[in-house]
């Protein structure tokens, strides 16, 4: 009697055990599929770009300016140089403001002020990038009577500031308070502690944050449409329209010419390689022990 009951219970247990196993297996499978859904698009994009664009990535592509519309040949040298200049200028304008703002938040401001600035930065990070293009059109392009490198750089810089601010603040807060106290106890002035101890300790993390922000804005097209505008010829001056890779890709992609379509693919491949490289250097920087 008792043995029958016991074995019955055991059967039930086994049944439940299988059901649990099944649920657990299903969950793992779902998780694996979701992870694949993250990786697949990247693989697909890279594959497609390589297929379509690799053949057009040649010396001409990096050294020539665009050929006359419709005629074959030419390259995107002006757009590559233009993007480099825009990114450099935007970083020079935006990164210091972001870093200094973060220093204020982590080292000087009261918690309440820091929380509200943090909130504003998060809102700014969520603003659609075309809004920045429109804004800079109003406050830079219109008064200057024309599209320009400067306007494009300002638009990108505005996007960079809250990004850099948030990442920098995070790494500054990671610097243990013990170092600040040790420096204070040595009779070192507050601002020197911030510059020579705190920022130096966090320098790797700050550089990482800036690189991530550069990677993030390097593909932005919308804020450049009404500011840098694009240019099929060489220009590196600050007050004329300037070419940029994303703009050039856009112009070429919507054109009716086969050759330009191929070059648009090549441009996209170069752009994504650049972003990939930036992210890779970030990985490299953050792998090292120090912050």
């Amino acid at each position, binding site marked *: 009697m008792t043995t029958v009951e016991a074995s019955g219970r055991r059967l039930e247990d086994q049944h439940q055990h299988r059901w649990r196993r099944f649920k657990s297996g299903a969950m793992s499978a779902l998780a694996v599929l979701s992870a694949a859904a993250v990786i697949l698009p990247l693989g697909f994009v890279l594959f497609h770009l390589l297929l379509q664009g690799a053949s057009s990535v040649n010396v001409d592509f990096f050294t020539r300016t665009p050929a006359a519309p419709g005629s074959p040949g030419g390259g995107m040298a002006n757009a590559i140089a233009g993007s480099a200049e825009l990114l450099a200028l935007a970083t020079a304008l935006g990164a210091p403001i972001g870093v200094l703002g973060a220093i204020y938040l982590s080292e000087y401001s009261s918690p309440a002020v820091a929380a509200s600035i943090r909130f504003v930065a998060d809102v700014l990070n969520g603003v659609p990038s075309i809004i920045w293009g429109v804004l800079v059109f109003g406050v830079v392009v219109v008064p200057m009577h024309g599209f320009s490198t400067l306007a494009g750089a300002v638009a990108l810089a505005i996007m960079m500031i809250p990004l850099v601010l948030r990442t920098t603040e995070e790494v500054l807060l990671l610097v243990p308070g013990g170092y600040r106290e040790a420096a*204070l106890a040595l009779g*070192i002035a507050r601002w020197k502690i911030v510059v020579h101890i705190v920022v130096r300790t966090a320098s790797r993390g700050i550089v990482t944050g800036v690189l991530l922000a550069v990677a993030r804005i390097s593909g932005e097209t919308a804020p450049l449409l009404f500011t840098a505008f694009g240019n099929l010829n060489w220009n590196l001056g600050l007050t004329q329209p300037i070419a940029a890779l994303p703009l050039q890709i856009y112009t070429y992609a919507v054109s009716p010419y086969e050759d330009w379509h191929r070059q648009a693919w090549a441009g996209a491949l170069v752009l994504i390689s650049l972003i990939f490289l930036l992210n890779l250097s970030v990985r490299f920087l953050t792998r090292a022990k120090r912050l």
Partner: protein
Amino acid sequence: MNPPLGSPEPRTYSEPMRPPQPAVGQSPQPVRQIAISVEGLNLWYGKNQALFDVSLGFPARSVTAIIGPSGCGKSTLLRTLNRMHEVTPGTRMTGRVRLFGDDLYRSGMDPTILRRRVGMIFQKSNPFPTLSVRENVLVGLRLNGVRDKEVLRERLEECLRMAALWDEVKDNLNRPGISLSGGQQQRLCIARAIAMRPEVLLMDEPSSALDPIATARIEELVHELKETFTIVIVTHNMQQAARVSDHTAFMYLGRLIEMGTTQKIFQRPEHRQTEEYITGRFG
């Protein structure tokens, strides 16, 4: 060791004038001057009072230990001696602290300059992680504008020797400070503090994170350093207090219960609480 620290060499950064101090061993029975005197100190963290009417004096060029159970206010008292408690938001203090007669809390007293006169060693050793051994020792001087290579080189060796670390690091002064062992790191922090040529060294449980051998070295060092500096050491280790200190102050629940020579406190304490704590009946 009659220290080169006493030598009147030109100072490249401004240090406050110091009151004359009696040279060690000048008279056969030196009357111990009071280096720091605390009068009627009360301190609050927000609404919570942590120190109640504390008054005591720390004799110059000797070691005073502050003992007492955890949370009784030892660290808090120590931090009022170089105004480090002001770093904690929401603290409020009443009472007076004098360093060789000079009121630390008078208006016009710059806490930054004060802290060069009253150095501090923390429980957790904290060499700056991006700096080498050499840079760690010299960072206080460098950031206060001392540029003279000769001065820096001399001070480096002098301080590392005083901190009993020179022989261990002299061949590799450029290695990161944090690559040293725990005990060496703490001695590096001591070298870094004495590079500022302070008059007083405050130590907050400086060896509580160290093994017994490293602890013994720190204790030896404290013994040597008292020739040059006034030392106040917080410790929860009563054997340590008995070994290193000349005077001992016992605190309990934010109050100073009793202070006297270490011998007297440990052999003939006046208060029952002191005796109970020392004999290990609570704490």
